[in-house]
């Protein structure tokens, strides 16, 4: 180290002598964190580019031609093709398949366009980055009037920035030698070129330069300071060298270059086409589909643009502030002898509280406050703390990056939509989980051990809020207004996300703190950092998939708030409590987010990891010496035994409570579409009971446990789930023995007791249900324990050493838990084929042959009309046979009006309300129909065929049994070919196909309306 004497500036504070020792540099950990922020910011900008280029593509004349000439006719043909398909589900699948096929070339073309745009943007960014050493020469500066006074200054862009001059030894040999020596101390392998801005009177410098060519520009004011304050001068130089050492230069300038490339290549055309959507087109074209003219869309887009710009600006500055702090800490660590840099920093100006506006701007600027910088130099470990705003910003930026890619990726995924979007969100889920876990893990090292929730709740909720808000303010949100969530939906989905993230934070905090506890000898041997990484990695593996799934389902906000089965009644022959039970269990079982989650190995494997990782890291768990572990296993086992008992008793109870026609599926059971058969209600009821027991076990474990609740609760849940799985087969065997669902006599054998091929899936489902149920229960148990002061009592007990005594069953418990984890993991693996069957797209039927449409699906539909049919017809009697399970019901309807027109179109109008009535097994049956549909028809040889059905007035079909509404579904344009007999004012319609024979018989009377 060069000795520069002891002369200091007058501003240097008294009493700040040399430090006792070097301050540790936070090093790669902090650099990696800010690198991740940079990458996320760049991803957000590039993802916004995807939206911008997509909008430009939509406005191109070639896109318009493609849409008008190829896509739109193809859509029309697809509608005709699917019209004859009678099964609604089949029809929807086929329609989706055909529509995807139609749009495929269009979306492929859009993807190519967007890819080309991104390439151009990247090239521009590369050029801008390559030119960044010359950026300072181009800047906004104020032109000075001739009189030299300050009046009338104009701001303009000109080449007026600094012109750097290479500092050569012949200019100042001692200065160059001194700087080179300093650079070698910082990094022996990389000495930057020294340049001086001889025109700059400021006392500053700047680090820049292309890879392999680092440069440091020193202002002349700084160089002159060398004479007056050599230590301060060297401190600033060290600060700039630290930027090179920390590899800030490339990332910083590349990020800025990418932003400006985005502005030049994507944002400007996007803004122009947002304001003038038809600037490039002669007609509407596909732009009309984008609903650019929708009310509020322009404001939405411009607002999203403002948010994007503001977010990028604030996020970039936040990252730069962190980099500045890191550079300060690094430079200060190099200067082991003095306090020159803190003293220099203390002299920097900062707005006072009275200057509120300037203070606000300074706080979001590129440089942190001097006080913060001095604090970072004194305590570099504080740099590793993650603030609430930082987490919110990270969530927002990550969400913007993800959301803006959603539309394009979703379109390209076609029928693999859910899979594609989930895979797209997986890296972002990993980013969020890793960031929060890392923040909590570092915070656990810094923070105190009391009131942990106060430390964990803010970052988790901030991350969830930022990520959730991105859905509303992303650039693509204006184009997806149909998926715009209501306030309630937004609050619910964000709350679910926040709870999930809070659980992550609690688990990480608990494991890390206990690993670093006094009872852990590993903490003394430099293992904490490795352990922290292991915990963070485990958190990523466990939480990233659910976070990705959350994002996929949050795209359609109704997924979180819709109970798909509720409109359909369960079978029950009017037994109200049983039907309610069927509804509830069906709601839970078919709740889409939960149904998809239990069709993955995510929760079982996650549960295993939640226990296995701390079991390896925390010696007390590893050795089985904690009584709390034993207690968790006991609680879980007790709940599991209760589950087995329930499984044994339930068949008897069901047999006693329900008549045989309900339990026996071969009987006359009212089994409506979508309704649940007895076996389903029975199974789901048992699974719900096991989930309840798991929740109870979780609550008791959390309420009575001492520490490591986030680890012990999964232990109890897993034990209960496995025993519950055993109970499932016990119940099956008992059911067979008592002939719960009928079956042959003497069917009681060992076979039903033996797990079958579905065992893995069932255990996976039990674990998933239990894990979800135990979240709320665990929180309640914890809250009760906190409120009643049990935890404090337990802490006192633990401090007395009782909890640390080895337990005699410790080794056995650890072995049992290992076997349990292996079993759950194997079950998840065995369930993979069934998981795949759930996640793979539904197989659509091939397009039906146009038997009733000679022109074919793609051909023209030539009207073929029978003059007798033309006009409006009132339904005088509509005899319909409803098939309900194995039973049939005959109902009679009246009130509809059917109109046949000469242009080949027909309308089926239910009027205000068409009612059908009948009877089924002693119960009254009533179907109420509303709404109207239309279609094209052809009448040939006393057969009417239909195509192109559409709803002209939405309505519904409601089923009432004994006056109680049991089912309701939206009216759909379903038409089947009719055989007709028309004579004068009378018309009769019957099924034209043999398969439908006897299903209906409609008698109509000609009305007074023209209808033609």
């Amino acid at each position, binding site marked *: 180290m060069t000795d520069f004497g002891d002369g200091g500036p007058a501003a240097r504070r008294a009493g700040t002598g040399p430090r006792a020792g070097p301050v540790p540099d936070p090093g790669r950990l902090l650099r990696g964190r800010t690198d991740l922020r940079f990458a996320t910011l760049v991803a957000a900008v590039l993802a916004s580019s995807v939206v911008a280029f997509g909008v430009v593509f939509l406005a191109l004349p070639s896109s318009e031609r493609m849409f008008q000439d190829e896509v739109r006719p193809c859509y029309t043909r697809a509608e005709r093709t699917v019209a004859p398909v009678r099964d609604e589900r089949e029809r929807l699948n086929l329609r989706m398949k055909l529509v995807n096929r139609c749009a495929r070339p269009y979306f492929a073309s859009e993807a190519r366009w967007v890819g080309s745009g991104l390439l151009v943007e990247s090239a521009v960014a590369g050029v801008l980055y390559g030119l960044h050493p010359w950026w300072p020469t181009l800047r906004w500066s104020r032109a000075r009037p001739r009189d030299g006074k300050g009046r009338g200054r104009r701001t303009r862009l000109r080449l007026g920035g600094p012109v750097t001059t290479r500092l050569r030894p012949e200019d100042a040999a001692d200065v160059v030698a001194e700087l080179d020596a300093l650079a070698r101390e910082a990094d022996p392998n990389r000495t930057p070129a020294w340049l001086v801005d001889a025109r700059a009177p400021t006392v500053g410098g700047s680090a*820049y330069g292309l890879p392999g060519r680092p440069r440091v520009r020193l202002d002349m004011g700084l160089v002159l300071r060398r004479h007056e304050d050599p230590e301060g001068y060297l401190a600033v130089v060290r600060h700039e060298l630290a930027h090179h050492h920390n590899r800030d230069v490339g990332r910083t300038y590349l990020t800025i270059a990418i932003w400006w490339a985005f502005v030049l290549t994507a944002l400007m055309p996007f803004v122009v086409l947002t304001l003038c959507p038809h600037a490039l087109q002669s007609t509407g074209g596909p732009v009309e589909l984008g609903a650019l003219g929708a009310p509020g869309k322009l404001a939405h887009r411009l607002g999203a643009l403002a948010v994007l710009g503001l977010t990028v600006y604030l996020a970039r500055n936040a990252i730069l502030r962190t980099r500045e702090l890191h550079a300060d800490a690094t430079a200060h660590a190099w200067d082991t002898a003095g306090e020159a840099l803190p003293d220099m920093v203390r*002299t920097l100006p900062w707005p006072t509280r009275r200057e509120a506006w300037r203070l606000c701007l300074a706080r979001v600027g590129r440089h942190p406050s001097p006080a913060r910088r001095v604090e970072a130099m004194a305590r570099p470990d504080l740099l590793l703390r993650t603030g609430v705003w930082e987490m919110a910003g990270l969530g927002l930026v990550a969400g913007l990056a993800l959301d803006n890619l959603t539309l394009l990726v979703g379109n390209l995924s076609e029928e693999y939509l859910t899979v594609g979007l989930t895979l797209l969100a997986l890296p972002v889920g990993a980013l969020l989980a890793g960031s929060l876990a890392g923040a909590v893990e570092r915070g656990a090292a810094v923070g105190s051990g009391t009131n942990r929730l106060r430390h964990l709740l803010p970052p988790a909720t901030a991350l969830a809020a930022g990520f959730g808000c991105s859905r509303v303010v992303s650039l693509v949100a204006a184009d997806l207004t149909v998926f715009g969530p209501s306030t309630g939906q937004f609050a619910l989905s964000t709350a679910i996300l926040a709870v999930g993230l809070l659980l992550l934070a609690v688990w990480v905090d608990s494991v890390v703190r206990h690993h670093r506890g006094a009872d852990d000898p590993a903490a003394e041997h430099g293992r904490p950092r490795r352990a922290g990484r292991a915990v963070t990695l485990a958190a990523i593996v466990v939480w990233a998939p659910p976070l990705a799934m959350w994002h996929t389902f949050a795209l359609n906000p109704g997924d979180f708030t819709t109970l798909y089965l509720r409109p359909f009644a369960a079978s029950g022959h009017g037994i109200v409590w049983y039907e309610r039970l069927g509804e509830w269990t069906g709601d839970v079982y078919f709740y889409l987010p939960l149904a998809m989650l239990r069709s993955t190995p995510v929760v079982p494997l996650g549960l295993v990891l939640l226990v296995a990782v701390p079991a390896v890291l925390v010696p007390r768990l590893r050795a089985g010496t904690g009584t709390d572990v034993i207690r968790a296993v006991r609680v879980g086992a007790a709940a599991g035994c209760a589950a087995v008992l329930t499984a044994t008793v339930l068949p008897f109870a069901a047999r006693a409570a329900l008549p045989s026609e309900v339990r026996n599926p071969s009987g006359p059971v009212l089994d409506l579409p979508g309704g649940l058969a007895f076996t389903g209600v029975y199974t789901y009821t048992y699974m719900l009971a096991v989930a309840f027991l798991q929740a109870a076990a979780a609550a008791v474990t959390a309420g009575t446990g001492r520490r490591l609740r986030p680890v012990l609760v999964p232990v109890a849940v897993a034990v209960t789930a496995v025993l519950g799985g055993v109970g499932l087969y016990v119940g099956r065997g008992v059911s067979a023995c008592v002939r719960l669902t009928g079956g042959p006599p003497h069917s009681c054998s060992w076979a039903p007791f033996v797990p079958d091929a579905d065992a893995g899936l069932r255990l996976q489902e039990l674990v998933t249900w239990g894990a979800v149920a135990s979240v709320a229960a665990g929180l309640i148990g914890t809250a009760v324990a906190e409120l009643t002061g049990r935890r404090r009592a337990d802490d006192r007990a633990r401090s007395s050493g009782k909890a640390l005594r080895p337990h005699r069953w410790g080794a056995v418990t650890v072995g049992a838990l290992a076997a349990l984890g292996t079993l759950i993991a194997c079950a998840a693996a065995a369930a993979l084929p069934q998981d795949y069957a759930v996640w793979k797209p539904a197989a659509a039927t091939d397009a039906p042959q146009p038997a009733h449409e000679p022109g074919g699906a793609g051909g023209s539909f030539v009207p073929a009309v029978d003059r007798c049919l033309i006009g409006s017809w009132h339904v005088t009697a509509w005899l319909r046979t409803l098939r309900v399970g194995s039973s049939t019901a005959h109902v009679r309807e009246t009130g509809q009006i059917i109109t046949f027109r000469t242009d080949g179109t027909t309308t089926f109008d239910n009027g205000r309300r068409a009612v059908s009535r009948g009877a089924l097994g002693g119960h009254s049956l009533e179907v109420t129909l509303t709404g109207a549909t239309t279609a094209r028809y052809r009448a040939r040889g006393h057969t009417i065929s239909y195509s192109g059905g559409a709803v002209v007035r939405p309505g519904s079909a409601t089923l009432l049994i004994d006056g109680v509404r049991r089912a309701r579904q939206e009216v759909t344009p379903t038409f089947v070919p009719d055989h007709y007999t028309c004579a004068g004012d009378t018309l009769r319609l019957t099924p034209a196909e043999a398969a439908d024979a006897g299903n209906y018989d409609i008698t109509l009377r000609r009305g007074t309306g023209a209808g033609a």
Partner: protein
Amino acid sequence: MKARGELNESQVAALARAMLDRAAAVAPEQVAAERPMFGLLSRTYFSDPRRALEARELAGHSGPLGFGAPEVAELLTPLFLAAASAVVADLTCRATEVSQELMRRLLNRGAPGPEEDGSADRQVPAPVAFTGDQLRAMRRIVAHTLVRHGGLSEERADLLAAAAVGDAAVGEVTE
């Protein structure tokens, strides 16, 4: 023009250097810091004098990875170079024969520069035949330049100008 320009640059640099040296009486720390950098500063100034004098406008623009110090140092060398340019231009307009040596002799009176320290046997320069009006005009030009381009207060500008041109110059000139 080029030859004349080079001649003028040389004259101006010599005159400015002399001014800077004499200004050490008023701002010794500042002058001591700038002396080693005089060559670099003068090269930069002559490459684009206008931009060199507008450099104060750029204060505070340190770039994304700058240190962030908006403190502005007082650079005397560009100001003296500008003042020297104005003086040479003024003298040229007055058709006075000006030479580099003449300037040095004029401004080295009574305030030896660092290169003259210890040179006992160096020949004492001869008196310069400038009138009091000429010297007063030179001092006025220097002070005006310091105020206009350096933003200095009139008092400080007068003080520096007096030091740079010679406060006692008027009394030594032949009337």
